[in-house]
């Protein structure tokens, strides 16, 4: 089973203090650490598990700057067989649609049975690349995927819905699976695998190789931290005072 995994290198903002930069369209990144997008690491692990069951090759693809090669190398150490970086620096502003278009071009000569992506990236949270890529390729897709089993060229896929529901789909292949976090337990690369991956070549492609004009279909106008809402009440005082007032509000609203 030949698989493609889409991987994004993203800033780690969960515990960081995020500030808007001078352009008003991006955040200040110079003090942030970067890592593989969380959902993508689950997609990669799922691809490795599928490969371990039924063989085949895994190609990891990332649209990113040169530093994304560090992230791709981790993917190689964990179990990907080859890696492609699409030069972010060649393509200017991005949205989910343009990203999907560039990935489609980058993988056009690669034979595959399935493409796995994370269901979302933690920086942009568009949830678009997987489904858009599938539409562009004219193949089926499933989002929020929490289980994948493949037999007889069919995939049995679970999707995690609100309210604790699971949707079970049978899908023909090739297909795109946008994987939900928690689907598996991503492994750590062993030291031997790291050493072997360190010297592997990463194919880098840019505007010379991707000739088609991938266009944005949405433009980022502004990024801002929302002002404190008028209805929000900021509680101040000692911990005792704050907790007393919190309890009162909960009672007033009839929540308990």
């Amino acid at each position, binding site marked *: 089973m030949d698989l493609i995994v889409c991987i994004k290198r993203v800033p780690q903002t969960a515990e960081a203090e995020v500030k808007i930069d001078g352009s008003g369209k991006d955040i200040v990144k110079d003090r942030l650490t970067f890592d593989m997008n969380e959902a993508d690491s689950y997609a990669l692990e799922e691809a490795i598990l599928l490969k371990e069951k039924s063989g085949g090759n895994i190609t990891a693809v990332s649209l990113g700057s040169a530093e994304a090669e*560090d992230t791709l*190398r*981790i993917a190689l*150490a964990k179990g990907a067989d080859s890696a492609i970086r699409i030069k972010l620096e060649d393509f200017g502003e991005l949205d989910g649609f343009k990203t999907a278009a560039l990935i489609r071009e980058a993988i056009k000569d690669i034979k595959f049975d399935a493409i796995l992506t994370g269901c979302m990236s933690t920086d942009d949270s568009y949830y678009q690349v997987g489904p858009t890529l599938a539409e562009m390729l004219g193949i089926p897709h499933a989002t929020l995927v929490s289980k994948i089993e493949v037999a007889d060229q069919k995939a049995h896929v679970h999707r995690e819905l609100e309210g604790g529901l699971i949707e079970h789909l049978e899908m023909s292949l090739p297909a795109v699976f946008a994987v939900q976090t928690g689907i598996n337990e991503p492994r*750590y*690369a*062993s*030291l*031997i695998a*790291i*050493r072997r*991956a*360190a*010297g592997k070549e990463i194919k880098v492609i840019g505007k010379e190789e991707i000739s088609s004009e991938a266009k944005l279909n949405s433009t980022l106008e502004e990024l801002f931290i929302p002002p404190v809402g008028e209805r929000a009440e900021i509680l101040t005082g000692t911990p005792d005072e704050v907790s007393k007032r919190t309890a009162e509000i909960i009672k007033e609203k009839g929540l308990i």
Partner: protein
Amino acid sequence: MDFGLTNDQKMLQDQVRKFADAELAPVAAEIDKSGEFPWANLKKMAQLGLLGVVVPEKYGGSGFDFVSLAIAIEEISRACATTGVIVAVNNSLTTFPILQFSSEEQKSKYLPLLCSGKKIGAFGLTEPDAGSDVVSLESTARLEGDHYVLNGTKRFSTNAGEAGIFIVFAYTNKEMKHKGISAFVVERDTPGFSLGNHEDLMGIRATANCELIFEDAKIPKENLIGKEGDGFKICMSTLDVSRIDIGAQAVGIAQSALDESVKYSKERKAFGQPICNFEMIQSMLAEMATQIQAARLLVYYAGYCKDTGMTRFSRESAMSKYYASDIAVDVTRKAVQIHGGYGYSKDYIVERLYRDAKILELYEGTSEIQKIVIARELIR
């Protein structure tokens, strides 16, 4: 000049850091409390290849260099200092002398066991009346036919209570002084070899630190490492390498103390503002960060000296161990100070770090011994 890590070192750092954060840090307080040897940690680390970092693949190791080993020990120790020293002892005090000085048969026999975690290694040098003064060892080994008869007692042996393979030093010829010391590989089930008292330590509490007792223990002749009389040289070469890892352990402990202090000082409020706004706190944080960075560079440089084939790097190794240990004790003290009364409570990580740090100035050569090594290199 290049201060950057290589691709494989960066990846190793990334993966070991994530592993340590997710798997080791959450159990570190419990390990400290229970004192139970962390076999579960070691099994996981064996799978990643962390028990034989510098051992070639053909013996079951990972084939990395000594800078990489230091990076790994630093990251492990940042999460759990106990686990850090257990791994350091297995890597540098046990596998290294076998790798460097043993016969091919011994390497093939023992290294795969140590790298896979089927057996953990320990080092038997210190005795009740001989620590820094190695020449005062009282243990003896007498050749009788196809085996040596080993007698003596060793103290403060990290991992010993759970170890399967021991590197033990004893006199084969007392009159020759340091040239009469020999080194042996000793297996746990050797007749005449037993474990004595378990040490109840202030920090690194789950390291199965134990006394070794040899009463006419029968060691097969082929378990002599190198030749008779090579023991002192083997011991010193091994300590040159292992001290880098203790330096790395110190950097890891200190880094953890700084990380905790930065976090706490931003959260904790006094006089109406976070305490990180106060210049006396900032002064401590700045000193801690600078001390750690200097120590880290000394440690990596000592590893670099070993990796680039420098034949004598005793000075660099001693400097890294001495300085990193010194600042780890100071940095953890400052971390407790920044935490105030909470820093003295077991509810906060820095309490453990403060206790864990002190041993760094004592084992694998006290700070005083490191200074003697450095000074002798200056005036020789």
